Every structure is written in structure tokens, then in C-alpha cells.
């Protein structure tokens, strides 16, 4: 193997790209940090778990069916979505989590030399997928913690293919109103693809928050992302989807990986779609948790940024990565925000009261 040279085989854009290293399993972290338990407040998971109907679907999945391929394009699940949203089943593409559908869209529309536009302080995966696909990324600073519509429009050039909007934004919780989103889409006027990532859609209670799904018929260049990892508590099964106009989704279908969503995930998600009671219970928990955190953080004189979604950000008087380590020693795992370009901030998932109390207690000791 004298002539083996990995260096020569790797494209430059891959060499430059830093692979994401996920957290170690909980039991490993518990061992290293010497804590007796771990409250997971880092990934915006739903501590109530999946809706009861999904839980039943998971329980009743026969092990023998593991030997059989699932529906390659989530046939029944897409039909369920079409019933719920009043659209055709072909207007949905289902992926192994919403992260996978990001890749579908970028691969469908971008080639080397093209660019995408997104914000600097938002969900990182749009930027990552573009970078490791060799596509340029133009990042626009947030304005008052929100996506800057004019800033994004100003960055467009002839090679711009997609604009990614996270609505509400992870991690700031800010959102574009119905009016603002519509104005933005009108300005784009169908010349570029607009992706609206609504991963936290089901948590939003604000009245002027737009439902991207309702704009799809009017704007053929609009793609909407939704996930079952957050509100529906199916993060462990990895299932999300995109929706758009028929012509647009047919184009994206070229890069869609079939059979990537397993059978249990499809059945659990199908069962979750109609469970509005689960939504209400989760929203109540988030409302209570947020109110508690806001009050306690104010007592600790710690500024916070709280908008829509099941999370809020806390501004710290010290390094977020240091506070992460101090919290971990006390059995509380949060997300550091340095990687989101918010140094000295942490994002905490709103959870059950026991976890919220543990977090506040540990945080108070950590910032002393």
C-alpha cells in the first residue's frame, strides 16, 4: 500500500469540514463526571415521551417484522399527513429525521459554485450539509435575535439557490410573523427556493405565527420541514418530513433516499399525528417550566432569551463550556451555545418541574 494517499483523494471542502461529534451515551458521561443521574436538557427532547397511541404502536410492532423492509417511501404515513393537511400524499417526502431532508433539498438544487443563505446563529445543520456538499454558505447576522429578512435578501446573487429560515429560530425562539414571511416570499417572487424549518411548530402559541403548510399552494418555491423528534417525542426513531408544491417535491424526490425510515418510526409517527391531547399536555408543561425558569433566573440575576419553543437561552457571566462541565458534575446536561456563535450562553430544554428545579439548583452553584 505504498501509494495509498487519503490526502489526495479527499476533496478540499471535505478536508476543511469538521465532523460533528455527538455526545457520548449517558452511562459513559455519568461515569466520567461521577454523577448519579443525568437530566437531559440539551437536545430539546420531550420528557413526556411519545403520545400514548405511538407508544402502543411501538409496543405492538412484532419483532418478526424487523426482517421485512419498511415502506420505502412511508406510504401510509404520507397518506395520513395528506388527510391531516388537506394535500396530496405526493407533496410529502419523509426522511430519517428532518436532518436528512435538509440534505435532499441541497443536493436537489445546488452544485459547486452555488450558495445558500441562512443566519449566523441558528440550527447549524443547513450550514454543515452545504459545506460538506461543497456548496458555499452565506451567513447573515441575526438582527435583534431574529432572522434579518432584508439582510438575507441583500445577500442573494445569481448563484443563490436556497434560503433557509428556522421559524421559530433555534436557539433564540424568535419567529417571523405571518405578514413578514409572506412579504419575504413575495420579495423572492419564486426565483429561489425558500425553506422554512418548522421543527418547533407545535410548541408555538403566538397568534401571528404563520403555518408554512398553509402557504404551500400559493408559493410553489416554498418547502416546509417538520419533525417528530421534538413535540412528538420520537427523536430516538428518527423521522421527519418535508412538504411543498407537487412540482417542487417531484424535483426533490430525485435526491430522496428511499427505505431510510424504519417501520417502527413510520407506525409510531402515523399514530402520533392525530393526538392533540399530547400537544396540549406538552404545551402546558412547557408553559409552566418556562414561567418557573424565568422567575428563578431573574432571582439569580441571569439574563435570558425566551421566545417560542421548548427551550430558552441563559446568558452567563462566564464560559458556557465551563458551566456545562460544572452542571454535568451535578447531573444536569444542557447545550453550550459557543457552537451556535453565542459564547457564554447555554440553551436549556424545558422539562418536568423536577428537572427544572435540579437545573436551577445546579446553575446557582455553578455561577457562584
Amino acid at each position, binding site marked *: 500500500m505504498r501509494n495509498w494517499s487519503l490526502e489526495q483523494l479527499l476533496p478540499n471542502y471535505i478536508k476543511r469540514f469538521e465532523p460533528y*461529534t455527538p*455526545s457520548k451515551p449517558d452511562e*459513559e458521561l455519568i461515569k466520567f463526571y461521577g454523577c448519579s443521574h443525568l437530566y437531559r436538557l440539551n437536545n430539546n427532547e420531550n420528557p413526556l415521551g411519545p403520545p400514548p397511541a405511538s407508544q402502543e404502536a411501538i409496543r405492538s410492532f412484532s419483532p418478526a417484522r424487523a426482517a421485512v423492509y419498511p415502506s420505502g417511501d412511508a406510504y401510509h404515513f404520507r397518506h395520513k399527513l395528506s388527510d391531516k393537511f388537506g394535500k396530496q400524499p405526493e407533496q410529502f417526502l419523509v426522511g430519517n429525521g428532518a436532518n436528512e431532508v435538509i440534505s435532499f433539498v441541497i443536493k436537489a438544487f445546488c452544485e459547486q459554485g452555488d450558495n445558500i443563505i441562512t443566519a449566523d446563529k441558528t440550527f447549524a445543520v443547513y450550514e454543515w450539509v452545504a459545506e460538506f456538499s461543497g456548496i458555499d454558505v452565506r451567513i447573515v447576522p441575526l438582527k435583534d435575535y431574529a432572522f434579518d429578512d432584508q439582510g438575507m435578501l441583500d445577500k442573494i446573487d445569481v448563484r443563490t439557490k436556497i434560503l433557509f429560515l428556522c421559524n421559530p429560530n433555534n436557539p433564540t425562539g424568535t419567529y417571523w410573523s405571518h405578514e413578514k414571511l409572506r412579504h419575504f416570499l413575495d420579495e423572492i417572487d419564486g426565483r429561489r427556493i425558500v425553506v422554512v424549518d418548522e421543527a418547533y411548530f407545535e410548541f408555538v402559541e403566538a397568534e401571528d405565527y404563520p403555518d408554512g403548510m398553509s402557504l404551500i399552494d400559493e408559493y410553489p418555491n416554498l418547502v416546509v420541514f417538520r419533525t417528530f423528534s421534538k413535540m412528538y417525542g420520537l427523536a430516538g426513531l428518527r423521522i421527519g418530513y418535508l412538504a411543498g408544491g407537487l412540482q417542487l417535491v417531484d424535483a426533490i424526490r430525485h435526491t430522496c433516499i428511499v427505505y431510510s425510515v424504519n417501520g417502527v418510526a413510520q407506525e409510531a409517527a402515523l399514530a402520533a399525528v392525530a393526538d392533540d391531547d399530547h400537544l396540549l399536555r406538552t404545551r402546558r408543561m412547557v408553559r409552566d417550566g418556562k414561567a418557573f425558569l424565568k422567575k428563578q433566573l431573574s432571582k439569580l440575576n441571569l439574563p435570558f432569551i425566551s421566545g417560542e419553543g421548548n427551550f430558552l437561552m441563559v446568558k452567563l457571566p462566564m464560559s458556557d463550556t465551563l458551566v*456545562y462541565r460544572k452542571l454535568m458534575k451535578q447531573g444536569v446536561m444542557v447545550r453550550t451555545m459557543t*457552537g451556535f456563535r453565542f459564547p457564554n450562553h447555554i440553551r436549556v430544554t424545558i422539562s418536568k418541574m423536577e428537572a427544572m428545579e435540579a437545573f436551577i439548583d445546579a446553575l446557582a452553584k455553578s455561577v457562584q
Partner: protein
Amino acid sequence: METSHLTEVKLTLQADLIFLPLATSFVEQSARAFGLGEPEALGLTLAAEEIFAYLCRAAAPGSEVQMHCTGRGYYVEQGFLFEVRNFNMRVFNLTASVPTCELAETDETGLLIASRMVDGFRFIQKDKNLHLILTKEKTYPSFFDLPVPEARPLNEFSVRPPDSEELKMFVNLVNEHHLAQTIPMSFNFPGKVVDMVACGDFFVEIAADRAGHIGGGLIWHWDGIRLVEFYGPYLFNQPLESGMAQSLIESCIGAIARTHAVGMINRNPTRELPTEYFDPLGSLTFRQRGGGALDMMAYYRHLEEDPGLLVWAHPSINAFVADEYQRLVFAREIRLVRDQGESTSPWSVISAELDRGSSRVMLHPIWLGNDSEKVLEAYVETLQKEEILNIFFQMDLGRPWHCHFTPALLGCGFKPRLLLPYAGKGDLVIFQHEPGESS
């Protein structure tokens, strides 16, 4: 000869003295093509001549030497890649080349001569190959030759990269407004800084108003593959409440937050450093040529969520390591290495990364052998004769064999001073030699 890209040329030769003129001609012509002046190109050529001649005498018959010369804007790098099979690496200890007799003209003398002809000298072991790299820098006029603009508080500012003229102005302002010990050596030469930034080795951001007045700035570079070292923030007559220092730090963090950097360090902090972004790591002592010493606090910021790590340590520094992990709150499982009578190589090899300008050297373990204390003693003696005042040793706690150097280090007067998380395969411990401390 092949040209791999515009700034690098390569030549593969047999290690035979018949090719010596070709090798020296390759180095001299390449160095000049990459911008070195005549004296610098000649110095590099002489060093390369000594190295190549040495390899011809010491390498296995018929073995190949790959030479590459790389233009890096402000310096030229001359590399030699050769197989180490049947090759006694011990001679690559700088100290092995010190003649025991005044008249002795040993093979190794050439290596010492080579090391003195260049600005940097290091080697890396890659599987069966050794990669020996010499560096020689261009010469530049110093900042004293240029006028310094007046600096006033700015009403507004934004943070952005400077153009080359702004960069030179920024360098002058830094030298005018800040203490020498907070400024990298290269900042004596504005043109050099422009070249360092242009070739991507250094990054600079300034805080300037709309009219282009510069209120401050910050500089950073990669120190290895996982650590970013930065200098500053430098403010010029700006009130601390302007938030300029914080903006510069946040901009730097934003630029590296999604790269492979896991930490950032400032070993020469200015008084404006906003310490709320950093953890105090510890201090190193820098001895000055004119006498006196400065204790410089190093500040560190980890950029990722620490997933915990298994590290190795010798029992004699276990207390230091454990205390530092507790103070810095890093989750570590420490496993102790012990000498249980197993056979090791008779020879140790240590490489030296010399920075003559700032009178410092960083020693790196290359090979562990029974004579590690002798080799270290010889290094200290040689470096002190060379008037290198600051001698450091870098130990990687991710490599258990590194830890076996600990007794020798302590015996030679080195003390553990800093623990750098994730800066090597595992965490690094930086030892510093303290004169008069050897036992």
C-alpha cells in the same frame, strides 16, 4: 522534479553524495523563487547541504530522500522525508552532535551547524519515515520606520478583517500602545504580518468606525490542529465600557466555533482581555535576555462540551494532574503508568522546536529509551550554552509512553506548569525547566 502547486516544489533523490550539488541547487533556487533574499537563501542552502550530506553517510544504501521546498509567504520551509529503517535516530538529538573534543569533526556536527543556519528546526515521525523540516524567514523592515496614527475613542465601530494598509497601521498602533510582552515577535515587522495573514497562517480582525479609524483589534493563529492561540484584544485609547474587547473576542469565537478547534488560548494577555470568557489556566515564566523574568498567566477557553477522556500520568505528577482537572472541571479517568522492568530501547530521542527570537524552545518526545535523563540533561546543557533561556517540554497524556519521561524531567529540573486540555492526542502537560533545580 514535479511542481505540486505554485508554492511547493519536490525532488526525490537517492541518498548519495553524487547528488549533493543537485540537492543544494534545488534548495537555493527554490528558496530564491519563493522570495528569500540572498543571505537567507544561502543560509538555508548551507543547512540543507549539511542535512543531505549527513543522510548520505547515515542512511541505508539505495534509500530515497524526498525533498520539498515550500514558499509560505513570509518564510520558506525545506523538508526532508526519509525512511528510518536501519537508521539510528539518536543522532537527531541536537545534543548528540556536540563534539566531545574540540577537534572532533563528527557526522553529527553538521546537524548542529544546520540548526544554527535556520530559524526553525523540527522533525516528525510518520510510521517508518522521519520528516525533517527546516524553516528560514524573509527579512522585513521594522515598525519603527513607519508613522503611527493618533487613536481616539470611537463613537461607533464594527469588527471586520483589515485590508493590508489597515493591517500595517494596526501593527504600528499595537506597538505604540501595548507592552512588548503582550505582542508576538512578528509584530515588529508590519510587512511580515501582512504576509502571514495573506498566506492564511494568521487571522486579524479590527474594530473600526465607518471612516476607517481603528480602535482596536485581535490576532489569532492555529497552534496545532485543535488549539487556536490568540493575542490581544488590543485597544487604542478606547474606554473599557465601549464593549470593543468583548466584540473582538466574540467575533473570533464566532469565526472558529464551527471549525475543528476545541480550545483557544492566550499566553500573553493584555489588560483589556475580558476574562469572563476564559478560565485561568496557570502561568509560565519567561526569562528575558537582559535579566529578569515575567510570569505570564495563560487564559483558556474550551469550545466544546467535554465528553470526558481517559488519560495517562506518571504517579509522580498524579497530584498535579488531578488537582488541575479538579480546578478546571474536566472529567478525566487518570490511569497511572508504572515501570515494571520491561525492556525499552537503549536510546531516547527528543526533538526541539527552537524560537531563537524569543529565546525559547519546546522539546517533544520522539522515542523513549533508557537514557532519557542523560539526553534531557544534555539538551539543557546545550540549550543553555546556546543562550536559550526558556526551555519547555510537552508531554501528551494521551500517549502513555510519553509519561515515562516524567522521572527524567523532574530529575533534570523540569516542573509541570500548565495543563492544556485536548491539545494533543489527549491533554498536554507543559513542563518548564527551572535553572538550578536539577537534582
